[in-house]
């Protein structure tokens, strides 16, 4: 019998909460934990009510012991549980590096692939309202460099719900990266949520003149830039990668082969990051011939300032990006 699919308009946070709830309802091995997970505000609404709905054994508050909390998740995951750790900011994952990189990512290999680590770590990249240098870090490229980890970065409510479900169902440790601006979005979310396979970019806008490769909230930014270029009869194709690791290399090269131009819209810094990886993929494919230099859009090469004026200058500004791109044509 076919499952009846409906859809409901939801905020980004509600979509995430719905995916967690659906996963916990359908699989008793799933549990969620994190500092303040039972907070009435609930991680911008993304965990509200979960601890009331499920038993304390399956949704619980924890102390500030980041590295050991992830180690605990690794151990539970190795024995078949499916833990979801919720971290308020990406920056806190740096305290967990030993367990994420040295243990979660390596345990399957070290055991001769006789074990799996189905652990999901949710985290949020802060932006605006004085998040400052230690609450706005975007380290997705750093984690994508580690074999054995999956790195997921949705850009919409529906994708977030579907990708989070896929993360929870994955047998590999998965870093599920949200960014604060996404919490302003609402969108139609298909119910029941179906997991979305990793490594499949989506074409969110079609065009033949230039390829925009974007992730997370920069997908919306790239669409804004594309609309401005369209006024000058330049049609940009916008690719939403949805997952960084695995990366949909095929869609990137297929689009660039057609357009001959590329701009990368990253949430993070421009050096050694997504722009570098997209360059590698393009340069290694002899059929990808660029007619103009690659354009990189992302954070300036310093940490995020805490004051609003400096912070404004730190992030890419739409009008400046449009001007830079117009010079290519």
């Amino acid at each position, binding site marked *: 019998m076919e499952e009846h699919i409906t859809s409901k308009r939801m905020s980004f946070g509600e979509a995430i909460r719905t995916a967690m709830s659906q996963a916990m309802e359908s699989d008793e091995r799933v549990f969620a934990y994190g500092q303040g997970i039972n907070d009435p505000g609930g991680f911008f609404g993304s965990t509200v009510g979960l601890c009331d709905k499920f038993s304390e054994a399956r949704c619980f508050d924890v102390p500030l*012991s980041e590295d050991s909390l992830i180690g605990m998740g690794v151990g539970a995951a190795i024995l078949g549980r499916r833990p979801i750790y919720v971290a308020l900011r990406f920056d806190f994952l740096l305290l967990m590096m030993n367990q994420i990189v040295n*243990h979660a990512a390596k345990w399957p290999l070290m*055991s*001769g692939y006789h074990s799996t680590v189905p652990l999901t770590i949710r985290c949020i990249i802060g932006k605006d309202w004085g998040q400052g240098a230690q609450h706005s870090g975007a380290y997705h490229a750093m984690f994508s460099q580690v074999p054995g980890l999956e790195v997921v970065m949705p850009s919409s409510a529906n994708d977030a719900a579907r990708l989070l479900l896929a993360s929870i169902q994955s047998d590999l440790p998965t870093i599920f990266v949200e960014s604060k601006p996404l919490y302003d979005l609402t969108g139609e979310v298909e119910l029941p949520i179906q997991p979305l396979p990793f490594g499949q970019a989506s074409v969110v806008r079609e065009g033949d003149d230039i390829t925009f490769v974007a992730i997370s909230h920069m997908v919306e930014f790239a669409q804004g830039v594309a609309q401005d270029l369209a006024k000058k009869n330049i049609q940009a194709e916008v690719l939403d990668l949805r997952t960084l690791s695995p990366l949909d290399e095929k869609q990137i090269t297929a689009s660039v082969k057609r357009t001959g131009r590329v701009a990368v819209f990253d949430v993070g810094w421009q050096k050694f990051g997504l722009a570098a990886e997209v360059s590698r993929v393009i340069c290694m494919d002899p059929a990808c011939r660029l007619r103009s230099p690659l354009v990189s859009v992302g954070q300036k090469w310093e940490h995020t300032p805490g004051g609003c004026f400096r912070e404004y200058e730190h992030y890419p500004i739409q009008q400046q990006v449009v001007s830079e791109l117009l010079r290519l044509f």
Partner: protein
Amino acid sequence: MEIDTMLTLYRRMFLIRSVEERIKAEYQNRNIRMAVHLSIGQEAVAAGVLLAARPTDCCLSTHRCHAHYLGKGGNLQEMIDELYSLETGCSRGYGGSMHLFDKKVNMWGSSSIVGGSIPIAVGMGLALKQAGTDSLSISFMGDGGGDEGAFYESLNLAALLGVPALFVFENNRYSTITPQAKRQAALDVIVKARSIGVEGVSVDGNDAVQVYKTCLPAMDNIRQRQRPFLIEAVTYRLCAHVGPGSDFGSGRRPETELEMWRSREPLGRLASRIIHERPNGVALISAAQANVLAEIDTVFESAKRRFDEVNARVGLAAPKPPDPSRV
């Protein structure tokens, strides 16, 4: 103490000791192409704890994991195959000596990042509790693990969440060559554990019978109360931190200390006790040793033959001779 239990402990320790002595001997042929961290002198901890455990209890270890793997009943041929880098090894040639894994006996691996497996053991205990079993997780660590923040965090988490975990603090008094007193301002790990909310007891880690007898009620208690417990087993490593050699004579550890600990090494001690307590003790011990050395011979010959077969195909160069200035 029943004689059968003492003989089982003896046989397990004899197996561990003999396997490691054989590794030492074979190491000079340079085809165990990896670092080995031997447990010679510390066998009573693995044997005592793991004889008291149930097969369903889940075990995690450290870089010094040979004894724990064998104590848990891990497959010997697969362990030696792993040391010879064969794909038939317990970790299929991906793990190596520091990452021995045998799911069939609930040996769930080890971390060579000191302290790294302690929180993982807490998670295993949590999973066993969530699944409604009365199994427990066993976390072997060295005193070096007690230098790490993860040790304190993990004990707190286990106490806070009511996790059925046994922390085995195998105190051989050194982290590589640095003595515990140079690393820890307060030495009493039982006091530290209690202050965090984990009860514990210190035992003579070179007395397999005492280790075993302490673990039995402790494990029952963990299962029934769903609370963690810590056992400090005071012991001594007779080999160097890494490799088949010794770090005495190089000035790393005092030779007088070695002499003292050699007189208390656990295998000979248990043998003396059995001989002292039983008129037919000598015969019982040789019966307990039966077939162990022959099995080790067969296992090593098989692994070495298959290593040569693989290398005839791959053609790795002969390794450089060891540098005598390094241990």
